[in-house]
């Protein structure tokens, strides 16, 4: 039975009977019609927030059951950005896989690439053969990426809570980092820069100076952002004590990253299971003991400064050398160069394969079209992404394509905590709680 009055009806605002009573659907602007509901009945109000909502941190849908302004039940609906990346990778070569994984967590592409490449390298058994320079560049790119990712976390988190200046600051500073990415890899995002065996290209001339200058500028600008927010009464009012999740809750829900560190546990994979030579860098793991959104915000601010310190150390260590593994059966055969018509293979390489060495041509053709084979087995090398433990479970059956790649994305796992963090709080606090997890839906849905 429908009670919709079709004379002035909203198509999406009808009602229908269920075993638990009548359900009234409401769109926007028709709140008056709910007065038609019988008085005194047990009333449940379910509010759908998202997926297209400026405060849900991307295409996240939340289904909130509310009593007045209090959330009694919060659930997440995800999958709106699912693009089947893991499936697609099974039909491409190992090197092409990098181009796919970089699009998962689109705010931390360098981390996706590194996680994937480290697993592939473990399967290939070439972990010890990665050149020092490649490792330093990887660390430097990852730490710069951590800064840009945390800046977006502050920017979007600030915007969602109404702090629009924080958004402007965050995105402005992030652009400085993206300029470096563009200079080094050719692309601001989704750069596919880190490849199995090393990195795609050596740093271009002038990159080191630019990074040095940017680090100095970032330190200054980061201070502006922290001056704006750290002691800001409104910001604290919105975040202190909000999105509370203690260590027990974090452990049960598998939380990692800033959320776990906001409980006081200094768990950081860069320290506990170092990769890419992190054990040789000096840095601190910032923690807070408040277990709330404000603590996570402070951790992100502190981590950005630590990251810049690591970038400084990387710059001091950069000595000339190869950036790709020496094994010619794995390393990409050509060098890229910028020609008059854009980016392409270097003229020397073209000269060599087209008119000097038939074997070099065959080698180039085989590696580019067929790709290299990876011995059968499975590997999982987790790394510390800006959001927590990121790892690629990579399975090979000895072929030239991945048999299965599963990304353990921290955003996917951490979003499970939304219920625990926000049930019993106000609706507005749900936004702050989600922002403090900093989920990136590209990584959640993959």
């Amino acid at each position, binding site marked *: 039975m429908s009670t919709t009055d079709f004379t002035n009806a909203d198509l999406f605002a009808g009602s229908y009977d269920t075993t638990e009573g009548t359900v009234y659907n409401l769109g926007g602007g028709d709140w008056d019609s709910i007065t038609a509901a019988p008085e005194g009945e047990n009333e449940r109000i379910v509010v759908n927030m998202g997926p297209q909502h400026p405060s849900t941190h991307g295409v996240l849908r939340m289904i909130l059951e509310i009593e007045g302004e209090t959330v009694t039940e919060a659930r997440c609906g*995800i*999958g709106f950005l*699912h693009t*089947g990346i*893991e*499936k*697609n990778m*099974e*039909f*491409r070569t190992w090197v092409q896989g990098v181009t796919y994984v970089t699009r998962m967590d689109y705010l931390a592409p360098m981390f996706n690439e590194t996680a994937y490449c480290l697993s592939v390298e*473990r*399967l290939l*058994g070439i972990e010890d053969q990665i050149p020092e320079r490649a490792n330093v560049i990887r660390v430097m790119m990852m730490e710069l990426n951590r800064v840009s990712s945390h800046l977006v976390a502050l920017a979007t988190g600030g915007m969602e809570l109404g702090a629009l200046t924080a958004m402007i600051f965050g995105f402005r500073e992030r652009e400085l980092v993206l300029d470096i990415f563009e200079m080094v890899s050719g692309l601001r995002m989704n750069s596919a820069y880190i490849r199995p065996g090393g990195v795609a290209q050596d740093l271009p001339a002038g990159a080191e100076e630019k990074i040095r200058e940017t680090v100095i500028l970032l330190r200054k600008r980061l201070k502006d952002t922290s001056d704006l927010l750290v002691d800001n009464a409104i910001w604290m009012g919105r975040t202190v004590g909000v999105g509370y999740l203690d260590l027990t809750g974090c*452990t*049960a*829900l*598998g*939380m*990692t990253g800033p959320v776990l560190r906001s409980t006081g*546990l200094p*768990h950081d994979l860069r320290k*506990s*299971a170092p990769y890419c030579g992190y054990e040789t860098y000096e840095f601190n793991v910032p923690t807070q003991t408040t277990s709330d959104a404000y603590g996570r915000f402070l951790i992100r601010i502190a981590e950005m400064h630590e990251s810049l310190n690591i970038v400084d150390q990387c710059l001091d260590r950069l000595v000339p050398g190869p950036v790709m593994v020496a094994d010619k059966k794995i390393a990409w055969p050509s060098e890229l160069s910028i020609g008059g018509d854009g980016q392409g293979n270097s003229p020397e390489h073209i000269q060599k394969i087209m008119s000097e060495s038939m074997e070099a041509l065959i080698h180039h053709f085989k590696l580019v*079209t*067929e*790709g290299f084979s990876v011995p*059968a*087995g*499975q*590997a*999982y090398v*987790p790394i510390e992404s800006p959001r927590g*433990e990121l*790892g690629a*479970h990579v*399975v090979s*059956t*000895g*072929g*030239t*394509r991945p*048999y*299965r790649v*599963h990304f*353990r994305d921290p955003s*996917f*796992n951490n*979003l*499970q905590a939304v219920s625990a963090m926000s049930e019993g709080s106000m609706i507005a606090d749900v936004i702050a709680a989600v922002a403090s997890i900093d989920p990136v839906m590209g990584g959640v*849905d*993959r």
Partner: protein
Amino acid sequence: MSDLPVVPANAADLDVVGVRTGAFGSQTSGDTSGFGGLVSPIVMPGASVPPFGGWFDEVAEELALSLLDAGVSGAVEKIVIDRGEMTFFVKPEALIAFMTECRDEPALRFEMCTSVSGVHFPEDKDRELHIVYSLLSITHNRRIRVEVVIPDSDRHLPSLVALYPSADWHERETWDFFGIIFVGHPALTRIQMPDDWVGHPQRKDYPLGGIPVEYKGASIPAPDQRRSYN
């Protein structure tokens, strides 16, 4: 494919998950390499024998002892140490007991189940589906992988949500992608695909899909229909 046995009789320990034919595996045109008749098994790393070295032995021994105390026998099918990673192959009926010991035994204390996912080996008869769990002990700074093998004909496995609440979404995703039914899961619904989706996309018998691409008069087949190696 020939009827000759691919694997010699004395190689029972090998974990053969499939067969590859030809030198390149290309199916769509003649193999001019001369290796077109080559038939080779796909062998995953096999069982390891103790001592494993490092902390692997301690974990294996502690687990054996605590499973004995709990009165569970034959839970572990085999232990594989490969590339510095430890994998326990656990029988599905003993999964809950095994995981309980992993979590609760102080000498093990794997506090976190960080990931659940699946791998589909359609050619491995009655061992088609592998469910892979990743356990992390922050206390001892150790990480193990737990793998459960189940037949495609009976895709049931007990849910770990009561033990590790973090497994909730991961199990839903594994159901969504592989069709594995986690018995006891509080709400085993699809998570990435729409609710009314038919099929489980990460299974190897599920096509990738896609349409041919027209380019300058030529038609390039969809990615899973193209000539390929492997």
